[in-house]
């Protein structure tokens, strides 16, 4: 089920990339695809009935099937941080584009060669 949600989110992101003319919406579409891939990677490590991989008083020992796979979560932690970085750089580039061409809509930009 979670796999299906992430695939549909990828479809929404690709649709947004192809139809929208606003560059910020392009950035948001890329961000949606990023989120979809993260959801997918975390979902590959899920074990039915598994708990979060943290040892507590109630779950003091290791057993197969008790905890979900922690490795995809650790990888996605990296991916989320890098996604934030690329989103920040992209948004700041759009601020400069707006200043120079007076719009971030690809059809209303001024001074862009045909």
């Amino acid at each position: 089920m979670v796999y299906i949600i992430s695939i549909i989110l990828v479809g929404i992101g690709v649709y947004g990339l192809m139809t929208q003319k606003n560059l910020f919406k392009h950035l948001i579409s890329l961000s949606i695809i990023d989120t979809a891939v993260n959801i997918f990677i975390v979902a590959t490590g899920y074990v039915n009935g598994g708990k979060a991989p943290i040892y507590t008083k109630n779950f003091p020992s290791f057993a197969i099937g008790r905890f979900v796979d922690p490795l995809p979560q650790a990888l996605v932690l990296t991916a989320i941080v890098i996604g934030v970085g690329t989103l920040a750089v992209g948004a700041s580039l759009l601020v400069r584009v707006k200043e120079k061409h007076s719009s971030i809509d690809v059809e209303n930009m001024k001074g862009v060669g045909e």
Partner: protein
Amino acid sequence: MRRFYAILVAAGLVYMLFMFLGTIVPYGKADVADRVSAHFLAKDVNSISPTKWVEGDKQVPHSERVYGRKGFEDGSANVVTSIVVNYRSFDTLGEVTVLFASAVGVGLILGGTRRMKYGRKPNFILRVSTGILLPLIILFGIYIFVHGHLTPGGGFPGGTIIAAAVLLLYLSNEEFSLNMIVSKSLEGSMGSLYVIFGLIGLAAGGAFLFNFLPNGVVGSLFSAGVVPLVYMTIGLKVGSELSGVVAEIHEEREG
């Protein structure tokens, strides 16, 4: 017409990915015993014999009580933290570097000299509640990254919460602007401190970012060796970095 083609292409892509779903492990049926993650969870990665794994035998570590005991490879109760900051710490150093590069990029693209004014007075509720909420938000951020090895969280979410406090200050006060010298020097010194921890590990244990402090009892605050120290440096670094990004967004160039 363009929307129609877009729907067609997106639906085709979704269909292709659905076909791909049949070849992977079904949702919820992941076999942790088949992966290295079982050894990450049981905290005995060094006991894996590589030849046995290649021949196809599963090497499942025997289950034993971990919480409240000492003497494991890694002493953090949160297994994700032990992977991020201990087993794969070099990867995290690269991640911090990428975040630093993006913060520098935002500074180069947006960097201005004076604070942008919006010309409107912030709401009364916003101004008063900032004074009440700000210490709580900063305290919560510090709690998140100090307890990164015991509870969900860690340096990256904690730093982001601190940056959210700075954003609240920017929204509630037209005159406020972050002291960039303090934030940049904190960021730089914390980034170098991470590398220095790695070099101390290289000198003490023979491997870069080696965990050179005693691990202690799993589940207590002073445990897991170097992990809480590294997560504190990461928390302060990410907090000052993202605060700098928030500050640069609110700046404009002269003229």
